[in-house]
């Protein structure tokens, strides 16, 4: 009697994999494939007119620019918040640690109306900025503020675990060799956490690019000025201009899939980098 090489001890492989593929296909892959197929029905002229129109170009500029700035601010302050939460003791630390997840849990529409009212000229924060001539709500700065809010947890949550596992003996060694704290941070700590920091930055950037709910309330959504790409797509849908919406969606999908691959690679680098050191 010979045991078949493919005989498995555990049951349910076909059932679970079959269901996984079926459900994945039905909910995710077929609808996404529809976008590709519908793009294929467009003529080159239609496609280019939609994706390279002045309105679209202005929307890309704002979407990419504001997302980049928001992710950058989150990288700097997220690192600071992670550092403070891991290294120092202070009153209210556990509450702050839990609250960092708020942008994940709070519906984006709620974030949108709240930020809009905070930063309006008569809002709690807006009224302090207005005398300085800084308008936030209904401007490009408002878009940046909303994108910073929704990206806030990413860097904190990617850097925090790496800092927690950090071997402080390395810092002691640096101190013994005569490095001051600032030098130790720049030369020893920062290089170690850099892959995690970059991963968090990329995640925040990718999230910001696709964001709709929080921005639509705090921005005035004026084409060429304060309109981001998801709002532009929504606009085309409301006008039943499906070819233009499909073409723009295709561009955004291509960008987000590229970012997904980049992030996967970053995470792989992150683990490898961390295991080596």
């Amino acid at each position, binding site marked *: 009697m010979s045991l078949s090489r493919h005989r*498995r*001890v*555990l*049951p*349910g492989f076909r*059932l679970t994999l079959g*269901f*996984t593929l079926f*459900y*994945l296909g039905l*909910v*995710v892959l*077929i*609808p*996404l494939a*529809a*976008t590709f197929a*519908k793009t294929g029905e467009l003529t080159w002229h239609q496609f280019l007119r939609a994706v390279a129109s002045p309105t679209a170009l202005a929307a890309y500029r704002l979407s990419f620019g504001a997302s980049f700035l928001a992710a950058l601010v989150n990288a700097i302050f997220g690192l*600071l*918040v992670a*550092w403070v939460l891991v290294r*120092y003791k*202070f009153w209210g630390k556990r509450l*702050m640690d839990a*609250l960092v997840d*708020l*942008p994940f*849990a709070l*519906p*984006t*529409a*709620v*974030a949108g*109306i*709240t930020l809009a009212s*905070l930063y309006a000229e008569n809002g709690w*924060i807006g009224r302090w900025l207005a005398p300085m001539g800084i308008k936030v709500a209904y401007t490009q700065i408002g878009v940046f503020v909303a994108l910073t809010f929704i990206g*806030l947890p990413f860097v904190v949550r990617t850097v925090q675990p790496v800092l927690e596992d950090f071997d*402080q003996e390395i*810092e002691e060694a640096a*101190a013994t060799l005569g490095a001051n*704290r600032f030098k130790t941070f720049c030369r020893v700590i920062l290089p170690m956490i850099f892959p995690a920091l970059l991963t968090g930055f990329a995640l925040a950037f*990718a999230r910001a690019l*696709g*964001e*709709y*709910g929080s921005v639509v*309330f705090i921005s005035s959504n004026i084409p060429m000025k304060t309109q981001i790409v998801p709002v532009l*797509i*929504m606009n085309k*849908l409301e006008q039943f201009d*499906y070819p233009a919406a*499909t073409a723009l*969606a295709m561009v*955004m*999908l291509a960008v*987000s*899939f590229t*970012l*997904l691959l980049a992030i996967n690679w970053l995470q792989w680098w992150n683990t490898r980098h961390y295991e080596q050191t």
Partner: protein
Amino acid sequence: MPYIRPKRPTTEPAAVRWILISVALVFLGLFLVAPLVAVFVGAFSNGIGYYLHTLNNPATLSAIKLTAIAAGVSVPLNCIFGVAAAWAIAKFDFFGKNFLITLIDLPFSVSPVISGFVYVLVFGAQGWLGPWLIAHNIKIIFEVPGIILATMFVTFPFVARELIPLMQAQGRAEEEAARTLGASGWQMFWRVTLPNIKWGLLYGVILCNARAMGEFGAVSVVSGHIVGQTDTMTLYVQALYENYDQTGAFAVASVLTFLALMTIAMKEWVERKGATLAEAERKS
């Protein structure tokens, strides 16, 4: 000679610590605490009477019901999917496994607006199945089924993503032992696998549910935006806000914010529970 306490080499001077903590707290206060307080202040700005009146409105109740339906359908389905996918991926070896994991993560990287739009392209009047659906008088887009589908799409990866690494780390030995001792497939699942993964599963369900209740962009694309019929809670917040009923919008938003805070509290609880269990396991 007075004793000088040596400086610890792995921390910063008190002044630097104090400055860093202050900057972090100001940043978090500005971006997290201020919005949180503003929601509740805004909700009660016309008094508790108006607050209760808004929440007791038939349109609000219908929005709450629709949100509950959307979450009530999509969370269990994605939960079953998550367990099945994690089982196949963690317990067996097959070609293309990493690619499959990437595909499962796809919905996270798609903009919410596009997540809704892809269903319009399939089920909408000009979509693939549009003519057939019209001929059979089945309405999906701009109706409740569309909202459920869009919610399923955006919450798709949550449970699977939580369970795959967990079950991969747990390995196959315990289940193999159960099978060798004569347990049937379901006995093994209920008595061995499920108890092992229950905290991870709960964690995934909490996150999945939070997103399902809070989704806005995707459902906005596929909803007919009829108050009392196809408005979820988040869409109703928008409807009130755009009708210049700010206080009403914040009243409904305060319910969603309360749910978000509950989500965070439960997440903390599950995380702590999981950590204690892992600790106990290490000691035994």
